């Protein structure tokens, strides 16, 4: 009998502690700024798409989940800033492993991985995200923690390598959101 009480001593002490549970749908825990969630395609300030359809993201993808079909920019009403643009840009979220190689590969910072992780759908077809879906701002933004604290590298690269630039893959604008 004494053995059993002794065996439960740690468990009994836990009875008087506060629960660590977070009530998820009501409380949305902020993600860290480097978190890799749902992809986003970006536009320049003048409204033109940053993506020029070079397919480097598709080449870099280890899961082969990106499909890019490029086309020549029309003379009237350009779509992108480059010579060509992505006529079709699709990401299959069911295949994506969120490794972030696409944003590392993109030379124009056109695609980044955002903070949103609530991606469940009731059909597989709905998980194929088209260009319009990726260009649009997400409906509900997931909060993010301090960029200053959790994204800026600890070392002043200026001193180490003579090149300091806050621009990282996850934070292409170089400034807190």
């Amino acid at each position, binding site marked *: 009998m004494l053995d*059993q009480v002794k065996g439960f001593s740690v468990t009994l002490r*836990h009875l008087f502690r506060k629960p660590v549970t977070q009530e998820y749908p009501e409380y949305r825990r902020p993600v860290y700024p480097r978190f*890799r969630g749902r992809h986003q395609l970006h536009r320049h300030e003048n409204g033109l798409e940053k993506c020029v359809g070079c397919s480097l993201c598709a080449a870099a993808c280890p899961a082969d989940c990106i499909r890019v079909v490029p086309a020549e920019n029309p003379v009237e009403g350009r779509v992108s800033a480059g010579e060509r643009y992505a006529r079709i840009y699709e990401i299959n979220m069911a295949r994506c492993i*969120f490794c*972030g*190689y696409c944003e590392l590969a993109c030379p124009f910072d056109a695609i980044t991985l955002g903070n949103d992780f609530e991606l469940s759908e009731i059909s597989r077809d709905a998980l194929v995200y088209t260009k319009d879906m990726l260009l649009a701002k997400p409906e509900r933004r997931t909060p993010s923690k301090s960029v200053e604290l959790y994204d800026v590298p600890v*070392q002043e690269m200026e001193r180490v390598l003579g090149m300091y*630039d806050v621009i990282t893959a996850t934070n292409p604008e170089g400034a807190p959101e």
Partner: protein
Amino acid sequence: MATTERPTKLWPTLEVLSPIPSELSPSTDNPDVLEINLGPNHPSTHGVLRLVAKLDGEIVVGLRNELGYVHTGIEKNLEQKTYWKGITYVPRMDYLSFFTGEVGYCMSVEKLLGLEVPRRAEYIRVIFQELTRLHSHLIFLGTGSVDLGGIALLFYCFRDRDHVLDLFEMVTGQRMHPRYCQVGGVAEDLPRGFEPEARKLVRYLRNKIGEYEGLIEKNPIWRERTVGVGVIPPDFAIKMALSGPNLRASGVDWDLRSANGGYGAYRELGYSPVLAENGDTFDRFWVRVQEMRSSLDLIEMCLDGLPSGPHIADDRKVVLPPRHELHTSMESLIHHFKIVTEGFRVPAGQVYVPIESARGEFGFYMVSDGGPKPWRVRLRPPSFVALESIAAVANGHYLADLIAILASLDPVMGDCDR
């Protein structure tokens, strides 16, 4: 070696089974021997392992492992991906000790290339290898205690595991499978908030490990279930090629972090392995709890002595150029395109790089034919080897003890089947 200094201990004799070392055939002529299936969907098998057990009453007299239910062909996949893309595949084998897979893969590519890794990157790699070891041991402890009928430890361990994963999310961007380790170093430098948070976690976990010890070491119910159950003598453990905590629980002083001088930053840090004496189920649990303590010590040592400098090697043929150079330097852009599309070429040759994962020796044997993809990658998974010995160890034990022994060997089926 430390084993000779201890008083001689009487080990039970355990012979390697023949003709198949992993298969135990019943020696009784009792006609009532019952053959039952444990798995593949059994909660205590840690994945999809099928154990075909032959029972004489409640005593295990025959045992056969059936593997391969989560075979994903990762070795074959790696042959079809460039070295850079392969990094994302390896952590998905041993999904509990994910970062060690990445480090082992990158280390073998670096060895083929003859690439020097900056000291800072080596230290960061050690920090995350130890964090992933903590993560793996916490899950082992939690699920292992569920197998023995105690659910409390599962909740405590999963609660604390989340704090470990928070650090992964902060630095690498993903809670598991981070692809943080890259050939030549690590993908990004540590953020400013990392050190205080890591020190906070070390303090927190030191405190909590005392609590786990209270639940297993001092708990009479736990001791009753585990002490003297499934004893593995050191000579048998060596014969069956056990490695990692399973081997050290039998008192064999072998840890790749310290053996032959260690690898990476372990060479500088110096590490002395945790050893137990009896090699029973209790000791296999105990060794892992004590290893969590030494992991915390190593993390603290790394944080104290973290050298400054670049976090990735400066080799433009292998390592992606810095982001900002893509907008200014044509040469960088060409290198970038080359690495992403075609991949870098690795000189022909073959290497074997063993690395101490949370489960033991995780070996990468890689053959390159000079192209951008590995010609052959062969892995030595510690779980697969550990499962080989379960038939001999469980011989003559109760069915419930078989579950305890299986839990204490800590197999991960993703690692085992690849």
